[in-house]
């Protein structure tokens, strides 16, 4: 049992960044408010990404009004699986993953069946803004359900694992893969019970995981080791994270990417206030890495090309 002062001292030594520091020194300093809509509205993010030639999951439909919900069933008639999400959702709230159907009902990723009525109610809640930041009326995106890469089969419980990379001024500084668990209901958000597994930036090999406040080495549902996995397409993932900065012009941003079996990496969404648990998954604080990039900034030596930034990150940031 450590006393709080020792904890604070040790955390400071490894450069752990608290929520106050993240907000005061990075989010508020590097993220201009006028660019927030680019990440807060997933529809805008998607359009920007398409314009920049970044791969994203295909958009099937957008629902803006209550009455469009009825038409949606018709539009989705030929789609076996799809994902429904609020455009302004935060923290994965409200996302509905439909993996198939049975008669008139939809089957969710966790196996539960959803009647049409329940499905409609959920969408109407999304439109009223139940899941959106600040509760304003929202619109709903329906998009391609990622067929995830089998490399993660042993370490996911239903749902889609995704990769979160923190990008600071276009430099990837820290990465983790988020694995859904039984507890997280197939969702890949840590506060809902998913596991975060730190990834070594230079090699793309997983290191260890965090589940809640607990450090772990195996997936709690499948018991497979989550350490030492090679993330496929690693360089491409880092490149997408580096390019995301040019896309939205937010200095401090969390980039969420999924790996599709056939399509490869797809940019899912961006987050202007990425969480701090990634530090636990990596067993290391963000601060030293961020300071290194800030040193470049102070020296006026920030690289223009995303590829250069990735190279710098793999060489100089990863060893911190």
């Amino acid at each position: 049992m450590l006393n709080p002062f020792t904890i604070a001292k040790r955390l400071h030594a490894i450069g752990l960044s608290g929520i106050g520091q993240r907000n005061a020194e990075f989010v508020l300093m590097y993220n201009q408010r006028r660019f927030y809509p680019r990440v807060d509205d997933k529809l805008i993010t998607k359009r920007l990404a398409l314009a920049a030639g970044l791969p994203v999951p295909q958009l099937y439909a957008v629902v803006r009004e209550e009455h469009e919900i009825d038409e949606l069933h018709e539009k989705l008639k030929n789609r076996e699986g799809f994902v429904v999400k609020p455009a302004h959702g935060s923290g994965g709230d409200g996302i509905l993953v439909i993996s198939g159907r049975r008669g008139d009902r939809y089957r969710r990723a966790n196996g539960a069946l959803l009647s049409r009525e329940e499905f409609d109610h959920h969408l109407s809640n999304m439109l009223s803004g139940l899941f959106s930041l600040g509760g304003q009326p929202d619109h709903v995106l329906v998009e391609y359900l990622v067929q995830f890469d089998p490399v993660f089969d042993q370490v996911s419980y239903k749902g889609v694992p995704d990769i979160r990379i923190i990008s600071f001024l276009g430099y990837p500084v820290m990465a983790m893969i988020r694995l859904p668990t039984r507890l997280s209901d197939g969702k890949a958000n840590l506060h809902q019970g998913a596991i975060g597994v730190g990834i070594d930036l230079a090699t793309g090999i997983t290191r260890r995981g965090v589940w809640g406040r607990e450090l772990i080495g195996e997936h709690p549902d499948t018991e497979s080791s989550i350490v030492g996995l090679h993330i496929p397409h690693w360089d491409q993932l880092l490149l997408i994270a580096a390019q995301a900065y040019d896309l939205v012009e937010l200095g401090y941003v969390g980039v969420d990417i999924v790996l599709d079996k056939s399509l490869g990496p797809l940019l899912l969404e961006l987050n202007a206030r990425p969480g701090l648990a990634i530090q636990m998954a990596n067993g290391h604080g963000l601060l030293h890495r961020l300071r290194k990039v800030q040193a470049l900034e102070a020296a006026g030596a920030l690289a223009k090309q995303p590829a250069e930034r990735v190279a710098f990150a793999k060489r100089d940031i990863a060893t911190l």
Partner: protein
Amino acid sequence: MKKTQLYLLALVISLIGLGAFYYKWQVLKFPLQAQQQSEIWEVQARVEFEAKSGPNKVTLQIPRNPPGYDVIDEKFVARNYGMNIELGKRTRAVQWQLRRGRGTQALYYRATVYRDQHADFDDTEPRLAVAAQTVEPYTTARSALLEQVREKSVDSASFAGELVRRLNAANPPGEVALLLERKPTPEARAHLAKDLLADRRIAARVIHGLALVETNANAQLMPFLQVWDSESHRWDTISTDTGAETWPEDMFLWSISQKPILEVENNPRAHVEFAVQRTIDDALAVAKGRLEAKDRNLVAYSLLNLPLQTQDVYRVLLMMPIGAFLLLILRNIVGIKTFGTFMPVLVALAFRETQLLAGVTLFVTVVGLGLLVRFYLEKLRLLLVPRLTAVLILVVFLMALVSVVSNRLGIEQGLSIALFPIVIMTMTIERMSVAWEERGAAFAMSEGIGTLIVAVLAFLVMNIRWLAHLIFVFPELLLVLFALTLLIGRYSGYRISELFRFRALAEDPITPAPVAAAPRVAD
């Protein structure tokens, strides 16, 4: 750097605040603590009426040498009005005049009074009373009543007392009922008694007093009946409630004039409200006087000069920043999670009405019951806004239910929930139920309990008497709070809750190792 600018700004602001505080404290000698031993009161009459388009003339009876009290300061607040004081024999009235008026007019008379030991009521002999001319059947009723009273009395005081008791009887006999027709108020009954006494040549008058009790924002003038005792040569005062001979210690004589207290020409709907407040203490009154001597404007622009009702509001309002600051510390430095940003402070304000225990019980009961209903509503698949409205309606019902039940059980606190923030409770219920479904019961409970804990702490802090006094007398101290808030706005250290959240990491970090090294696994 921008941070230096912030520190500088915070420093300047807190210096201004502390400087003003020091000046008021050391030079003007404003008291740091409320002392309650002195008996200084502020009494206020507020006249309100709708102005007529023509000339408006207002006459208000005001105190003159009230027995047992000294008026040490008086203020007449009436913008654009011409004013003069009319002195009667032993009465005094202020007359306000306005050539052309529009809209609602509010005029104030304020007096600072303190209790001393000096003389009694006046003792000049009144003129002999003249009996009124009456017609039948009133004449008969009057003499019948007076005859009954005479049999039970020995002198003029007991006569008047008996008369008042008979007029106040719950089931008055026929002749009394006849006389009491169209005289519903104690005021009217007092005047009736006076007239009846005149029939027996007993000189009497109706006087008005104001009870000086701790913060009485809606005080009422109370009529008393006085009869002249020609033997001992003085006025005897008789309560119009009980008929007993009494003039309470804390009764402040407003006027002995027999005219109406307030007269507004051609405007029967004008009314006057009274307020009484024990002032913070005499030291403060003295300090105020000193400030006034130095600089009239400083007093004119100080909170202490506002009407009493408004002062009461500011006593509460000025404590809100304290509650908000506490919330800021608990959220940003300790890291307690709450629903909504300022919701706990608003809940804490509501606790002021109910007191703590009853407030918490009420909050938990209503939110708990509301949650149950909300879970049922979830099954009905209502749209968001109708669902919120439904919950709000139910919350009002639940609160009414709590009031009714607690009234039956004789618990008074259940009745004092008038200002309990219904909308806030509705939003709490909604957010809690959504959090419950999305993030699980534990998460919802922890945020709910966090909200309650912060609300309770905020209530306790906002209810510290000396702090309330300090902030009300020295509002500039809030500038210091403002500066501190600015500083915390850039606080980038760990929150206390984060030390627990990241504890595992402190116990077992991955040391910055060469990339090739095998990753260590902690388990």
